[in-house]
């Protein structure tokens, strides 16, 4: 029985939990039941919460090697612009201690290093640092290899470290970081509310939370066009480039399951952040949410 379950998990399908359109619910709204395990969504499937972590882990184990290539293909390179804008919004100053959550392959951290270098803020005597944190070691390994190849590991003015940890349970002290970023990672977490609570905890007073994540398009015609592209083409591209269909189908579905801009804003406020704002990018395909620990 256990063997069957792991085989079914590996091939990413469960006969019992077929796609249930309209059964979208957010993990923070699930009420604990006496007998049943807490349920949540995995794309359009319904799974137990402890299963979701494993299944998401499986997805990223599978996609890690082709992650960056697939991002370029799926977004036609635009994700680079989104991340550039994201770092411009963060506008780090010397002495920043950044925690880049779900930082895996290093896209945000490398931009952070470049930003500080370009502003020649490295000349200042205040040392800056970044902790690249991800639940998936394979993704971190890809990031480390990229850092080596692109020369970031030898950067003297910014201390860089890599940490494998769960965003819902960070092995870090309170009030440690001045900035917390999470880019295209939070929607994969099982308990988004817990992630936000942890983010609040590890930030220093005055610290900033900045999140880049896929969101909903306000224009319903554009949302429909985006849906067609996502559901029709992205898994096909996953099959051709990475030899994998199901992880990309999950990624596309998980975007639809994530709360919209306003709902996510209230969740951030519920965690204690203030001055919470958001900015849409590319018609709302993604959004940058910002909040402060005040």
């Amino acid at each position, binding site marked *: 029985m256990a063997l*069957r379950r792991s085989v079914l998990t590996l*091939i990413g*399908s469960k006969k019992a939990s077929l796609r249930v359109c309209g059964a979208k619910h957010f993990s923070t709204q699930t009420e604990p039941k006496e007998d049943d395990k807490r349920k949540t969504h995995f794309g359009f499937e319904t799974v137990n919460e402890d299963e979701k972590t494993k299944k998401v882990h499986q997805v990223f184990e599978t996609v890690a090697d082709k992650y960056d290539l697939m991002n370029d293909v799926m977004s036609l390179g635009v994700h680079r612009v989104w991340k550039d804008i994201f770092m411009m919004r963060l506008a780090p100053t010397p002495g920043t201690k950044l925690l880049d959550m779900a930082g895996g392959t290093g896209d945000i951290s490398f931009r952070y290093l470049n930003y500080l270098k370009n502003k020649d803020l490295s000349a200042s005597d205040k040392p800056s640092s970044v902790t690249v944190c991800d639940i998936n070691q394979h993704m971190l390994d890809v990031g480390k290899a990229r850092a080596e190849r692109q020369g970031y590991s030898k950067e003297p003015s910014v201390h860089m470290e890599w940490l494998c940890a769960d965003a819902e349970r960070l092995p870090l002290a309170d009030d440690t970081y001045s900035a917390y970023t999470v880019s295209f990672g939070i929607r994969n977490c099982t308990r988004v509310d817990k992630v936000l609570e942890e983010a609040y905890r590890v930030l220093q007073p005055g610290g900033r939370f900045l999140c880049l994540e896929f969101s909903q398009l306000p224009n319903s015609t554009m949302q429909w066009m985006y849906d067609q592209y996502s559901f029709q083409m992205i898994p096909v591209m996953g*099959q051709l480039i990475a*030899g994998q*269909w199901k992880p990309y189908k999950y990624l596309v579905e998980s975007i639809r399951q994530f709360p919209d801009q306003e709902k996510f804003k209230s969740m951030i406020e519920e965690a204690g952040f203030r001055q919470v704002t958001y900015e849409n990018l590319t018609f709302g395909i993604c959004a940058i949410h910002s909040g402060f620990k005040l």
Partner: protein
Amino acid sequence: MQRCSSIRRFSSSSKKLCFREELKNNYIPTNFLQKTVLTVGSAAVALMEPHRGDMIACLGEVTGEMSLKYMREKLLGSSEGAEILKEMPRINSKTVCFKTLSEMPERTLGRVYADFMRDNNITADSRLPVQFIADPELGYVMQRYREVHDLVHATLFMKTTMLGEVTVKWVEGIQTKLPMCIGGGIWGAARLRPKHRQLYLKYYLPWAIKTGNSAQFLQAIYFEKRWDQNIDDFHKEMNIVPLTKV
């Protein structure tokens, strides 16, 4: 499935159930637009990166529906073929004991197959599961085609070099009518080095066309029941004349 895995080897009807369930679990529905993009894309990737066996597999599935129906009809046309379709036997290291085959007398089909796998350093477990075909019988015909491909190589005495692969693709293409085989035969030949291309044009291609047309339908051969058959008798029965090196 638990019942299936424990008595799989002893009951042929549960083998069939296993395959149907496996096919259903792996099935990914695709529409015409997606099949078109997959066709063009997988052909392009297969040409650019020949090591991507999964792209050949994908191409075969999305373009093969009509050919698979043809193959199914041909299987039902012989008693041996009909038996294969009914029993849905699988070929992998769990269903075939390669150790036993390698100890069989020389010049038997089983021994020739085991030696071929060893000499070319390949395993019977590398065949990808079918993903884009819904009909269980057609899905099985595709899976069977993949799993007997090495046997076709072995019995035709064709190595797994590019030259050997292209030759086998021609024979398979003529017999199965799978577009992926026909395409593979043509495009694969374009990648041959000059020396091999000469051999191909002078000897291998004419032989492949003759063999493909005159040999028995190899997909309808229940190889697993013929392990102890002498290879020369097998060739006579199948109307195969091995290519002798000049």
